[in-house]
């Protein structure tokens, strides 16, 4: 395609949007609401997952050794290697009896610790095992319980189940809603194209007499819908960028108690994923909706 044809097609596409203004606006509005919901869900999920991740990072499975192993550095090392080799495990931290005592002193005793001369926690050397994904805790724990040389496995069942449960639910609900909205958007885009074709039926006929190719007649419709899709994507991105910080301020004010756990992502982090995905979906709806319609109804 020549440069001048390219610009001509773009120009016609833009003109079409105005000629078919009501339907163009309706399509833009639907795509915008679809992608606004998507953006809001995404922001919530991303933050939620961030919070879950921070929480998960704090959740560790702790294993203590049987007495004979406590005396035996080599056995301890072997056990540590076996655990690290598991696919569920992201990190294994060895805490020696002395370290455990130091932490305990700092956390709970403060200055009262001075009366102790020997380590009262001898035999409390342990591994703190961090998981890649909290939902894999069960399988890891059952493995750990079958290992020899291990006296006790400490873990928190409730936290793990709750976190992964909520996480899944939020994802399913949002995927469902977004799916429905996508279908509605494509339907509306397709209608916009059909209306456009019927408005321009005579014109298209004339173009064909003069020798216009299918591509030449169809391309402006596709450009029109691509632009509609991109505008439909840009609007919610703008809204989210304006509103995001305000909402965060509101939430932190309301729930001051939670401030220590709620670690929100900055808008830049959200944008890094949200902008390309939103524009991609907007463009995709426009292209897909128009191409299928034009192929079906514009058999030139």
């Amino acid at each position, binding site marked *: 395609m020549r440069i001048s044809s390219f610009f001509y097609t773009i120009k016609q596409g833009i003109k079409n949007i105005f000629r078919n203004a009501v339907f163009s606006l309706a399509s833009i509005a639907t795509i915008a609401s679809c992608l606004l919901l998507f953006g809001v869900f995404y922001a919530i999920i991303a933050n939620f997952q961030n919070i879950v991740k921070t929480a998960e990072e704090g959740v560790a499975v702790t294993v203590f050794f049987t007495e004979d192993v406590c005396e035996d550095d080599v056995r301890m090392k072997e056990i540590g290697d076996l655990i690290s080799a598991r696919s569920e495990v992201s990190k294994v931290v060895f805490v020696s009896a002395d370290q455990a005592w130091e932490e305990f002193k700092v956390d709970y005793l403060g200055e009262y610790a001075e009366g102790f001369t020997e380590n009262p926690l001898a035999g409390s050397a342990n591994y703190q095992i961090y998981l890649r994904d909290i939902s894999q805790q069960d399988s890891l724990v059952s493995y750990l319980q079958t290992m020899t040389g291990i006296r006790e496995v400490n873990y928190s069942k409730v936290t793990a189940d709750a976190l992964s449960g909520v996480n899944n639910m939020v994802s399913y609900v949002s995927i469902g809603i977004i799916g429905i909205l996508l279908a509605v958007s494509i339907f509306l885009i397709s209608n916009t194209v059909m209306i456009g074709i019927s408005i321009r039926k005579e014109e298209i006929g004339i173009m064909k007499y003069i020798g216009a190719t299918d591509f*030449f007649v169809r391309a402006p419709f596709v450009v029109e819908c691509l632009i509609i899709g991109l505008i439909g994507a840009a609007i919610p991105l703008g809204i989210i960028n304006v509103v995001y910080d305000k909402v965060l301020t509101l939430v932190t004010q309301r729930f001051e108690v939670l401030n220590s756990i709620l670690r929100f992502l900055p808008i830049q982090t959200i944008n890094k994923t949200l902008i390309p995905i939103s524009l991609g979906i907007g463009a995709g709806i426009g292209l897909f909706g128009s191409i299928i319609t034009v192929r079906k109804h514009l058999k030139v």
Partner: protein
Amino acid sequence: MAFGRKKKGRVIPEDELIVFENVTKTYQTGAPALNGVSLKVKKGEFVFIVGDSGSGKSTLIKLLLRELVPTEGEIYVNGVSLSKLRRRQVPKYRRNLGVVFQDFRLIKNWNVYENVAFAQRIVQTPNRLIKRNVPAILSIVGLASKYKAKPMQLSGGEQQRVAMARALINKPPILLCDEPTGNLDPKNSWEIMKLLEQINKRGTTVIVVTHNREIVNEMQKRVITMKKGVILNDEEKGGYIDED
């Protein structure tokens, strides 16, 4: 603009631009609109096609435009069989034809300039050439000053001249006109005909369907008279034949 000449099969002589061989066209309903029509048009000819309403003149034009395909028989244009054209090749084929209709068929939302320029956009003429060619062709048809007007702001004669400019701007070897003066008064009709004659003199083959007896008689061109789907008469320097 050149056709690709047919490479195998039936060879049509170089100067026989349009050849109908026993062409029959039957629509879904009724008797054949064309019934076994054979004719040849040579390069550079000017041909009138006349006949009663319903005699098949527009059908003949639509067959040439490849809007319709014959039920039987073959049509060759510059040696190429139209029934062998693939759907995708039709737009390219049509660029060899300029077309002018009774109802002008201009795009209403576009001004004169855009309507004419469109024919060049289709063939991907660079904008800088379009800007030069459109005013040139508009001044040939006598409409240079009205390039900004929308079709509705023009008289019938002016609209038809825009349609002619659009048909001619790509310099097609063939110009097809289906009742180009059907909606025009005698003065405008004559002007359009003079224009067609001028274009023909520059080498374009012109085929004009018309009911305008006075013009046909005056211009002394080849006249093909149709009746009920067959060619009743075909005369060099002919006149309008009255049936009744």
